[in-house]
């Protein structure tokens, strides 16, 4: 049994302690529903701070980062999870001892030990403040690109020993990211996101409904094309006037939605996963060894941008 712990909005002025208390309450609720693994959103401990311009060395920005994981500010979540025998996945802003900053996620086992870490590869947004915009998207300014690829590990026996992978937010729209995990036999994808409920380009081209559809489509199609379960979890609602979509889902290897959040607040969704359900896809339609033709995929690794035909 896995849970998605969708979180409602976290305001810029909210205290870390108040946010952590909400997360512990969600963890307890998920455990009570039978979940052995709980998936929290991207940057779960703070507001989505890349919407605000801040000096790179400002105290407010630095306070959004974790310089160790766990650390005293988040330790109560780790402690409660271990007491309950529940593991979890959580997104956070990582500050390394060398001073590098990443948009990261970790998965913690039921024993409280960190199983593995992922650093977001596909950073959206801008590397500089765009004048005149009400909300910024400064991920390219605040974070370095993930430097560790797309790692997969086999999870604990108590979870059914699934092959686990993680993505963060915008990564879920990139089939390359899913495929790199699919090529390691991934059976459970864990993804947190903070996705704007408005057209992030300042226009009127995209509504909250369309952006929620994109989020669902990316999770469903890529789960299907890699024959894996996926848990995609939002931080949702209105943060200091800026809307975030909800629509957290648990998806099966056929791309079918097993559970979906219905609010924009703190909400648990759960599903019981049978990892044998991945085998139909992995052994037949998406038997990669039998059917893939990498000799025709070279553009995917040999060029970055699109080049028009002659």
């Amino acid at each position, binding site marked *: 049994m896995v849970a998605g712990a969708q979180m409602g909005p976290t305001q810029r002025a909210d205290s870390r302690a108040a946010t952590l208390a909400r997360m512990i309450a969600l963890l307890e609720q998920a455990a009570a529903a039978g979940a052995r693994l709980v998936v929290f959103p991207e940057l779960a401990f703070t507001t989505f701070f890349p919407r605000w311009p801040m000096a790179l060395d400002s105290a407010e920005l630095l306070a959004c980062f974790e310089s160790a994981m766990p650390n005293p500010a988040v330790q109560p979540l780790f402690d409660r999870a271990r007491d309950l025998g529940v593991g979890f996945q959580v997104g956070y802003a990582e500050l390394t001892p060398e001073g590098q900053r990443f948009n990261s996620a970790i998965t913690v086992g039921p024993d409280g030990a960190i199983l593995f870490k992922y650093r977001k590869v596909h950073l959206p947004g801008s590397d500089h403040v765009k004048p005149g915009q009400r909300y910024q998207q400064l991920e390219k300014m605040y974070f370095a690109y993930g430097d560790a690829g797309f790692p997969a590990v*086999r999870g604990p026996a108590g979870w059914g020993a699934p092959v686990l992978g993680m993505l963060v937010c915008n990564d879920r729209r990139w089939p390359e990211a899913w495929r790199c995990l699919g090529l390691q036999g991934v059976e459970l994808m864990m993804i947190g996101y903070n996705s704007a409920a408005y057209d992030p380009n300042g226009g009127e081209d995209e509504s909250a409904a369309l952006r929620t559809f994109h989020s669902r489509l990316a999770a469903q199609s890529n789960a299907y094309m890699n024959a894996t379960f996926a848990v995609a979890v939002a931080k949702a609602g209105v943060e200091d006037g800026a809307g975030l979509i909800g629509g957290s889902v648990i998806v099966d290897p056929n791309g079918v939605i097993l559970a979906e959040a219905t609010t924009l607040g703190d909400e648990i969704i759960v599903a019981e996963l049978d990892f044998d359900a991945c085998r139909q896809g992995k052994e037949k339609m998406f038997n990669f060894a039998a059917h893939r033709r990498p000799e025709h995929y070279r553009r*995917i690794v040999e060029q970055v941008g699109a080049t028009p035909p002659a």
Partner: protein
Amino acid sequence: MSNRRLVVAAAQMGPIQKAEGRDVAVARMVALMEKAARRGAEIVVFPELALTTFFPRWYHEDLAEADIWFETALPSNETAPLWDAARRLNLGFHLGYAEKTPEGRHFNTAAYVHPNGEIVFKYRKVHLPGHVEYDPIRRVQHLEKRYFEPGDLGFPVVRTPVGAAGPVNLGMMICNDRRWPESWRVLGLQQVELVMLGYNTPSLNMENRGFEAHHLRVLHSHLSIQAGCYQNACFGVGVAKAGTEDGHELFGHSIIVNPQGEIMAQATSWEDEVIVAECDLGMCELGRNTIFNFARHRRPEHYTRITAQTGSEAPPAWTPTR
């Protein structure tokens, strides 16, 4: 709204029985082209292997016997009416067919034909599903890997004058290719604006190995096309040969999809049916210049597995530390 507008038709076809000749199929196709033209279409997309029944369900021990299903030249006497209709109606068209080359090689191919009758470019199916030898477990054979070799042309995109829109970046794939995000991405990396694809997809899983609920078959097809269009900021036309061919059912549900992944038009029968949508090609620019601006956002240094390995490889196992 841009002024680059292209009226696209999907010409879904009902079943073609094994005993029916190409003349029957071609006459139906000309009727579909006439209907599409009346509805303002500038380009018509036909299904995969549109001229015959879906013959890979039939086993020929002697491969030479299967040559009856292949075209050795386009146009031929039998297919010439399609070329005549294209010229008469000023329609470009996409045709799926079984190709036998002068060297005797066999491909599952699609051609895009300009209204003046010239073949602009071809695509040969890369992702062949199925198997090589007769499979006694399957309910129905699926012998594409027996009758065809994998395509050798990659995934070409050609900038082609079509209708009033001016040059349009056209790409093609065939049937099972649509389930492979690599196919879409290789086209996306060439700024494709319209992906044309035909399919013959059984409405039931015929492998007889494990369970697949029947209703998922259409979902999978639509998810693949909608996601491919969204993730590559292009339009897509997915066109079925549908209905019951010699007792074997193929689903329809042909769709035209916009770069947001939304379905603009969908067939509702499993018969000959034309669906039409006006595609504002300017819509491709939003995704291409923002969220899917590949030059700004792709990280190929982390994608090396996609070409460095073919099959999947298991990750290291984790063991408890305490």
